[in-house]
């Protein structure tokens, strides 16, 4: 199979489906980075070896897929067609699955998913609440498609929208569908994608310069891995989206700017691009038409600020990754002074569905009503990375407008370890914390902004009651202080100042004047910074001040850290619940716990570094932090 033309795309997909249909079933092994680091490649290889040993290789096919999403439960295996969900697998578990399930017809119950609340086994993936409540568009093929096979991608419909567009739509019609969908950028700013593309088309007409489309895969927010997963899972969806975008705005050149820290995603992307070129789905005369478009990959070099569009383009041009004033937008003059459309990975992944099924169908999902203007709502779905103190860490895609409570408790399974929900941080270092009283907030661009946070790229860091909100603010500020390019005064000096002030507050050296100064500095940063890194850097501080001011005041007025985190302000004590088992004393890195067997143990406060290991290992909950 070499170059594919418009007429035979369907056939390629059909042939692949037929080939798979010849098997009794498929063994879908999740090989996203999370599962890979837990040994998924060994699972894949061991399964293949086992099938051969049992002479089952013509009956069952191992299909390595991208990220399944339920990262807390990895390594994961899904057995099709029944959709049986195996979790937390080790290589030694596989023999049982082959023998008892594949050969014996009975799934291995001890390896299936157990519902946390009821304790019941839930054999089918479709019944597991984590999956059941999601709505997939960007991640439509997750856990199903083999990211390293273009035939697999085509069999799931990828490149079908491109064929539809090249066969019977004008570029302006493709643009119209994207506008109709109301989709807003998934990278964080939430700017309506259709308007962005339209501005590009206007700029091209005005300047006569050739446009370029760029995919921002720099994903720098700590805790965010949506884009990584999309590329590892379904790279062709992104490529198809970019082709459609290039077609709509008249671009022949495209780039993917991918951060250096994503080796597996890069590998899969390069493979996908090579395959696409080989089969005429990228490069000259795509699908045998007059439309030619190719993409080059540009790797980042470890700078968060290069996720900012103008810094990203400077980096692509070989210049220092520093932002510039955006008084003239990228769509007018961006990469090499040409009209440039920059969109996030997730945005691109949505485009084929919008063009394939029509923008109206997309607009019908989500919150608000975008029929008059995309600003009047948040259409479609959003991929979130659920991390932190949550039971079901992983990747979820939900319709905009879903309540926060549903994401955290119904899908996320609530707080890990039975502790209490305190806050959820959204939008990464540019976002803010949402407290428990806002759990019924309908998650969309505008509601999050109104609450003092922002959608951002979709990171959701869930925090329990053992989280100090001042410490959280300091964490994000310190991150940004290291990542600030340092060009403009408010961001560079402001972050140094805010970090210094938060440091003092967490050490019990805060004063009311300092708190005033903190707020003043935040205001200057918000209004006077050159780019959004600096302008949104105060958000974690301001939002925690808004909802958890009492915690700040406790640190300042009482020199106390209510959550028991800030080391200067807490001490560890062993209570009477101690049974004298001695486990804590053995684990203590400072060797500062003493006590006789079966007698109350004591912590030497002078040498205690408040690492918390004793509390973690104590089975009797006898270590108290005050």
């Amino acid at each position, binding site marked *: 199979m070499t170059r594919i033309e418009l007429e035979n795309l369907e056939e390629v997909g059909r042939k692949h489906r037929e080939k798979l249909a010849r098997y009794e079933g498929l063994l879908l092994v999740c090989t996203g980075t999370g599962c890979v680091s837990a040994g998924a490649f060994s699972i894949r290889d061991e399964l293949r070896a086992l099938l051969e040993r049992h002479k089952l290789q013509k009956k069952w096919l191992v299909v390595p897929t991208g990220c399944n999403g339920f990262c807390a439960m990895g390594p994961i295996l899904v057995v099709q067609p029944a959709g049986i969900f195996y979790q937390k697998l080790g290589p030694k578990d596989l023999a049982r699955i082959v023998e008892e399930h594949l050969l014996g017809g009975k799934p291995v119950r001890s390896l299936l998913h157990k519902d946390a609340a009821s304790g019941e086994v839930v054999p089918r993936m479709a019944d597991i609440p984590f999956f059941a409540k999601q709505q997939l568009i960007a991640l439509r093929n997750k856990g199903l498609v083999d990211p390293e096979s273009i035939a697999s991608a085509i069999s799931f419909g990828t490149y079908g929208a491109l064929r539809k567009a090249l066969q019977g739509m004008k570029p302006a019609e493709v643009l119209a569908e994207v506008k109709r969908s109301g989709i807003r950028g998934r990278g964080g700013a939430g700017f309506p994608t259709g308007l962005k593309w339209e501005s590009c088309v206007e700029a091209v007409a005005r300047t006569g310069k050739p446009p370029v489309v760029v995919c921002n895969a720099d994903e720098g927010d700590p805790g965010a891995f949506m884009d990584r997963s999309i590329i590892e899972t379904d790279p062709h969806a992104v490529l198809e989206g970019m082709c459609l975008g290039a077609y709509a705005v008249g671009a022949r050149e495209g780039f993917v700017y991918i951060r250096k820290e994503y080796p597996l995603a890069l590998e899969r992307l390069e493979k996908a691009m090579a395959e696409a070129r080989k089969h005429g789905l990228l490069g000259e005369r795509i699908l045998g038409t007059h439309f030619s478009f190719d993409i080059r990959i540009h790797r980042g070099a470890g*700078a968060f*600020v290069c996720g900012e569009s103008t810094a990203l383009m400077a980096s692509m041009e070989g210049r*220092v990754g520093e932002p*510039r*004033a955006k*008084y*003239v937008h990228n769509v007018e003059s961006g990469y090499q002074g040409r009209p440039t459309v920059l969109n996030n990975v997730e945005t691109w992944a949505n485009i084929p569905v919008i063009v394939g099924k029509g923008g109206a169908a997309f607009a019908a999902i989500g919150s608000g009503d975008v029929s008059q203007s995309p600003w009047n709502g948040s259409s479609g779905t959003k991929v979130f990375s659920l991390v932190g103190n949550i039971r079901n860490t992983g990747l979820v895609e939900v319709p905009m407008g879903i309540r926060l409570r549903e994401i955290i408790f119904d899908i996320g399974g609530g707080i890990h370890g039975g502790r209490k929900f305190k806050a959820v941080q959204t939008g990464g270092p540019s976002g803010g914390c949402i407290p428990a009283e806002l759990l019924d907030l309908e998650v969309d661009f505008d509601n999050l902004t109104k609450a003092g946070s922002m959608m951002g790229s979709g990171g959701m860091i869930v925090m329990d009651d053992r989280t100090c909100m001042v410490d959280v603010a300091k964490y994000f500020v310190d991150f940004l*202080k*290291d*990542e*600030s*390019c*340092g*060009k*403009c*005064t*408010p961001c*560079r*000096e*402001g*972050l*140094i*100042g805010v970090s*210094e*002030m938060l440091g*003092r507050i967490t050490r019990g050296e805060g*004063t009311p*004047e*300092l708190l*005033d*100064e903190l707020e*003043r*500095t935040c*205001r*200057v940063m918000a*209004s*006077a*910074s*050159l780019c959004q890194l600096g302008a949104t850097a105060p958000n974690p501080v301001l939002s925690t001040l808004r909802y958890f001011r009492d915690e700040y005041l406790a640190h300042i007025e009482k020199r106390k850290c209510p959550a028991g985190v800030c080391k200067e302000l807490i001490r560890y004590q062993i209570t009477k619940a101690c049974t004298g088992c001695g486990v804590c004393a053995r684990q203590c890195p400072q060797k500062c716990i003493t006590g006789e067997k079966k007698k109350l143990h004591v912590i030497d406060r002078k040498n205690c570094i408040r690492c918390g290991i004793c509390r973690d290992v104590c089975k009797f909950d006898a270590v108290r932090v005050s």
Partner: protein
Amino acid sequence: MSGTTTSPDKVPAVEVEIDGHKVEVPEGTTLLAAARKAGVRIPTLCSHPAVEPYGACRVCITEIEVRGRKRLVTACNYPVREPLKAFTESDETRQQRRGVLSLMLARWPNVPAVRVLAEKHGAKPPAYRHPLRNEATDACILCGLCVRACSEMAWEDIIAFAGRGAGRRVMMPFGEPSERCTGCGTCAYICPTGAIKVHDEQNRPVDPARIRKYGFRLTQEMTLLDDQQCQMRRVGTAHLVEIMDAYDLLPTHNYKFGKHPDTPKIASHVWKTFVRQNVPDGCWAGCQMSCAKAVEDFVPRTGPYQGQKVLVDGPEYETVAGCGSNIGVFDPHDILEINFYCDTYGIDTISFGTATAFAMECFEAGILDTEKTGGLELRFGNGTAALELLHQMSRGEGFGVIVGQGVAEMKRIFAEKFGGDPAFLRDIGMEVKGLEYSEYVSKESLAQQGGYAMALKGPQHDEAWLIFMDMVNKQLPTFEKKAEALHYFPMWRTWFGLMGLCKLPWNDVEPEDNAKYPEPNKVPGHVEGYINFWAGMTGQEVTIDDIIRMSERVYNFQRVFNLRMGKGTREWDRGPYRAMGPVTVEEYESRAERYDKQLRELVGYDPAGKSTPEKLAALRKYREEQYEGLLDAVYKRRGWTRNGIPTIETLRNLGIDYPWVVEVVRPWLEKEGAA
């Protein structure tokens, strides 16, 4: 593009209101510039008119209202594209400005540039102690002006920011002193805090800041104006080729003509494709005119470096004209090869070009033939023969040995040995005092004829270049005016030689306001710079007259030296007739209309019905008489006798009437009856 090529693109105007003052500015003007036009000054720190705005310090942050919406923008780089209102002193603007200055004050409390602004706008240091607090008065405030200056003004890109956030600092690559730094000092001068220092120990100028002020001004002019003016940085002196051709001044075929239809083949746009700018070639490494250039990876087709990649240092205008049009060669490759081998052999391209042109005309006139030249077909345009001549010169073999002795010697040899007509040879041999002419056609400018033939070292135009003033501007209509020009300019230009300075920065770039001065040819704005250079170096205040006098003393001293060497009298101040008018029928007829008109209007001779030789003779008589009149006027202005010898009184006035000087001139003066 609107309308004809004569009208510029119409840039729409936008009306803005700054603090209530309305002004109209072209679309794209920065808010800062618009405010300046409205008479409102917005404070800045990282902005400078000579470099692109950066928008880093944020001090210029200003509240504006566009389409009913208020926003904050940095004035230095916000392009005005639609009507707006700006409020430079609103509460919001002041609060933001104070906030920014307060942040800077925390880190740099003692830097005057920051402190002054902070005090003026009511900014106080914040309530915390900045972990990187730097109490120095000359701390670097990370404004980036030096980086932009090195890149945009000096075109060197040697310093840049390294590190991120709190670790941001300015340095050379890898933190090591870069060999490529030319020490031009532009970064030091543009630095607002004094963080970059220039060490002056070696020359110990009295007032370096005074010198640097004018030096920086020149750098700024080169940065902002060179591209619209002479493009010295991009193409160097070669920009003159097509211009001289347009004015009929490009020496062609041994100065017979002033233009050629093939000139486009060797015009500046051609050289742009060959050369790479800014390759230091021995000129002072910090020079901001930076007009040196070189062609890389050139492969000669002849000679000892045949087939190898070499670097060609050039070409300058003189080489393109002398080793190109003047010898009829319009192949850039041959010109470059001649340039290369002249440099390699240590031969001056002007002398080579003019001498070879002479030999070629002699060949075409039949005075030489291939037997005499050892087989070389020395016709105009034969680049291969010219190159062979050059190689022969270096080897000391063949006909090259003869040509290599120069025009003066060739005239003698061709007359004595080859039977050439001495009068003809004298007329077309372009040399004076033994030096070959440099590459401008002085035929139609009496002032330039004097400028060349009277020059002390021989016909080198570094003493005077008056062709435009004389021929085109018609600014020197009388002998007296010509004589005055032939006094001022040689004296002014000689001064550069005395100082060890290149004269190109004086007039190969002009200040933007040069046109406003009464004598723009003198570029008074730059003369001021050089006066301040002298004062800054020596501590001695001088006027232009003092400077002229400095040169006059040396010049007259040199004249006496010429006299002692036997070439200091009137007869040595005359050039060949080719430099003054048409020698041959061919030349006359190439400009017949012009020459006929002159005969009619200036000579009072009616050319109608006359033969060309007759007209030649009439014109010649007139021009030679004119030249003698010029000599008289110039000598008088210079305080020399009719024979061109400085009088004792002149020497005394200049303070160079030393006994050994007087000893040289006295016998001559007595012979003339002018002692």
